[in-house]
């Protein structure tokens, strides 16, 4: 707002000279008359002093009472490419302001909104006096400076020590190509043995009469799950962000998804799922986050609920499912050593719909998978993490295909299993974080924590829910506990934990010991 302060001050000076003398304020008129009489005698210094006094008085007046003022005209300058209608729609509130206070507030909001469009290098809003024949009015001048270089690019190589993989990522952004505040971007990310994505998208700050930004994105995503579940997923899709506000988000996605198994080692359930599918789903997310920090929350709560309905349009043969997940977090300050108790519970359920839905399996990539070393405190958005368990390291599994290469190594591949994911997932955690008694660590925000987590992943489709009992559900829970050191940085949170597995099932992949984990709240 610093850019804005100076012009507003200018406004006040202008007002003093031009506007306010026209107002129905006798006192002011008298002052000005006196000023005019005294003017020839005054030295520049005393004149300055008088001006300052007058300004102070005006400020005092603005802060103490409502000063009526109407906007006569809004002038937009400096937009060579940007459409005037876009800027006008962002500064709409200015025109309806009825007082100086309202106008200042509206100007601050309009400035922030214009800056947020990300297509201007600078935005200045100046409030000028209105035409002399219309007392009590002012003109608003919006001076924008468009970005000189509309192309920006990022490039980088990222490593994930936890997964022992690295990826190359690059993106190119084109701003304001058609003058509608449109942001075009293309990005490429290539991960060795993992996930690759090529995508291009456009976002418009407003489309037709919609007040929220609209986003469209085409992407080609390739994910490799051969190691964990013997399949590769390739998906070519179009996603549309229909509504996006602080708490609500509505998005539509249409994609062509192909599951293949180049290794030819898939287990029976995976093998039956290979093929093409059209995914057409609508996803609504409600999110509220009142925690004081996403990396080290010590106070507040967060709630996320996401509902997804698949198979709505345009073809009846597209994949039909309903997916619901929720996540609740609460951080309780304990009042000493910045200690806080964080706890959370997350759950999700997936079910197919349509004819014979009772007997149908759910589609593999939509299922829930637990495990991986991401911090449960950081990852908000559904049941995903369970410390101590490897990525996709628990839940229903099946033996992979058995290939006997020779008579000697008959037992070579027998232990390998495919993790199939579950339709009902629940996770819960409690985490006590506190500062360590060393000043160096405290200053750099390095702190310690002790945690316990539990999670369950079960299958309920294909009539499995008929044998579902509370006892079985309770038995399906896996638990782990441990302690560790947390190093939060600006971008991510690093944890070094000692994790002890309290409860696991026969085929789970879990390990008691020291683990590193990196998680980003973004």
């Amino acid at each position: 707002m610093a850019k804005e302060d100076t012009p507003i001050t200018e406004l006040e000076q202008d007002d003093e000279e031009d506007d306010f003398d026209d107002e129905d304020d006798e006192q002011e008129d008298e002052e000005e008359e006196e000023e005019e009489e005294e003017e020839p005698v005054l030295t520049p210094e005393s004149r300055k002093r008088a001006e300052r006094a007058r300004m102070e008085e005006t400020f005092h007046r603005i802060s103490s009472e409502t000063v009526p003022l109407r906007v006569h005209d809004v002038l937009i300058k400096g937009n060579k490419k940007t459409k005037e209608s876009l800027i006008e729609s962002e500064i709409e509130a200015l025109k309806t302001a009825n007082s100086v206070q309202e106008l200042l507030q509206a100007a601050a909001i309009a400035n922030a909104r214009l800056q947020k469009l990300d297509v201007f290098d600078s935005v200045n809003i100046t409030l000028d006096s209105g035409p002399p024949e219309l007392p009590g009015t002012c003109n608003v001048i919006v001076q924008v400076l468009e970005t000189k270089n509309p192309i920006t690019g990022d490039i980088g190589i990222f490593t994930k020590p936890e997964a022992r993989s690295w990826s190359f990522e690059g993106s190119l952004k084109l701003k304001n190509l058609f003058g509608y505040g449109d942001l075009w971007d293309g990005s490429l990310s290539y991960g060795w043995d993992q996930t690759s994505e090529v995508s291009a998208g456009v976002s418009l700050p407003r489309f037709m009469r919609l007040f929220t930004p609209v986003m469209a994105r085409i992407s080609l995503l390739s994910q490799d799950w051969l190691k964990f579940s013997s399949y590769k997923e390739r998906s070519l899709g179009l996603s549309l962000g229909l509504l996006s506000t602080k708490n609500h988000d509505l998005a539509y996605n249409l994609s062509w998804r192909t599951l293949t198994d180049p290794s030819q080692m898939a287990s029976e359930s995976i093998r039956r799922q290979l093929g093409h599918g059209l995914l057409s789903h609508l996803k609504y997310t409600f999110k509220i986050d009142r925690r004081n920090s996403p990396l080290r929350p010590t106070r507040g709560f967060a709630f996320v609920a996401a509902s997804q309905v698949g198979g709505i349009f345009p073809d009846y043969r597209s994949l039909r499912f309903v997916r619901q997940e929720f996540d609740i977090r609460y951080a309780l300050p304990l009042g000493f050593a910045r200690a806080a108790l964080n706890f959370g519970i997350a759950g999700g359920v997936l079910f197919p719909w349509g004819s014979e839905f009772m007997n149908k399996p759910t589609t593999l990539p939509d299922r829930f998978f637990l495990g991986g070393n991401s911090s449960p405190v950081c990852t908000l958005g559904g049941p995903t993490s369970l410390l101590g368990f490897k990525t996709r390291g628990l839940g229903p599994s099946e033996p992979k295909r058995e290939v006997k290469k020779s008579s000697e190594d008959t037992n070579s591949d027998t232990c390998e299993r495919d993790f199939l994911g579950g339709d009902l997932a629940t996770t819960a955690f409690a985490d006590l974080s506190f500062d360590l008694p060393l000043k160096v660590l405290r200053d750099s925000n390095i702190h310690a924590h002790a945690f316990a987590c539990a999670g369950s992943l079960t299958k309920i489709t294909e009539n499995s829910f008929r044998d579902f009992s509370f006892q079985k559900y309770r038995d399906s829970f896996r638990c782990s506990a441990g302690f560790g050191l947390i190093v939060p940085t600006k971008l991510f949170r690093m944890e070094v934990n000692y994790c002890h597995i309290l409860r696991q099932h026969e085929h789970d992949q879990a390990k008691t010991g020291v683990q590193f984990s990196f998680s980003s709240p973004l």
Partner: protein
Amino acid sequence: MEEPIEGEHQQHLTLVTRKSCFGLPTACPSCLPVYIYLKLANVPFDLCYNLTFPDSDQIPYVDSDTYVAYNNEKGGVIESLKEDNIVNLDSDVQDLPEWVSTIAMINSWLSDAMLYELWVGSDGSSAHKIYYSDLPWPIGKVLYLKQVYTVKQLLGISKDNAERREEEIYRRATIAYKALSTRLGEDSFFSDNRPTSLDAIFLGHALVTLYALPETSVLRGKLLEQPNLVIYADKHKAQLLDVASSSSSDPSSSIPRRGPSNWSSKPKSQPKRERTQEEKFFRRKAKYFLITQMVAVLVFLSLLGGSDDTEADDADGDEGFDYE
């Protein structure tokens, strides 16, 4: 029928193929031979359909717990089943040069002709029904076009040589049918009156040609020129149908989704198909007839109504005139 030669895999087999249509348990030219092979071997098996992966070379496959015999490994499912000692009908003949060369001829010349017929030589309606009818529209369309392109590449067809290649493919198919016809004679099977994989492979090809390809198909016409082959195919089809329908109560053996009426032998089903075609034609004609009748009635009514009005107008006018 030959007793199955069962090896160490005693588990129940499941055959995964493309969907059932045209009155066949599966109309995919690479899946049907495997189905017939297992039927000829009298092995109990389940039949499952994969409806979403038309471009996979893994289909058909036979699996049983952790054992899988894929189509794209070890020379195909039948060869894998033989190699792994699960089902082997060819133990006595597989080294005979005539037998091997006949298999090679079917797998090359006749299979090329089938590819050409399904993807290039016809309007693609059969291919669409066999492979894409359960896929959402854009995916089915794109995969069809991709497959047409691939087949053209595979058969070496370009704009310049299309006609010559077509001629060549059909010429080879004719030679093959003639040779097979001579070899079969009036026997029930190709070798020594016992079923081998050669019977399964040829029956698969012949039944798809006779039942799944359109009636205008050139390849179908070439096959019909060899009556003993047609009789052979129909006889086995009826036998397989009998097996399938008699075991319908048996849950281990799967039944094609179509009723047994579609499983009748060719001379019966042929006129039936023609009748349905005729019916369709008559229905369409009837529709046109009704529409034209409707239009005629409407025109008649409007003209009649119009003439009434004019008459009334005239009468009024007359009256008015009279009054004046």
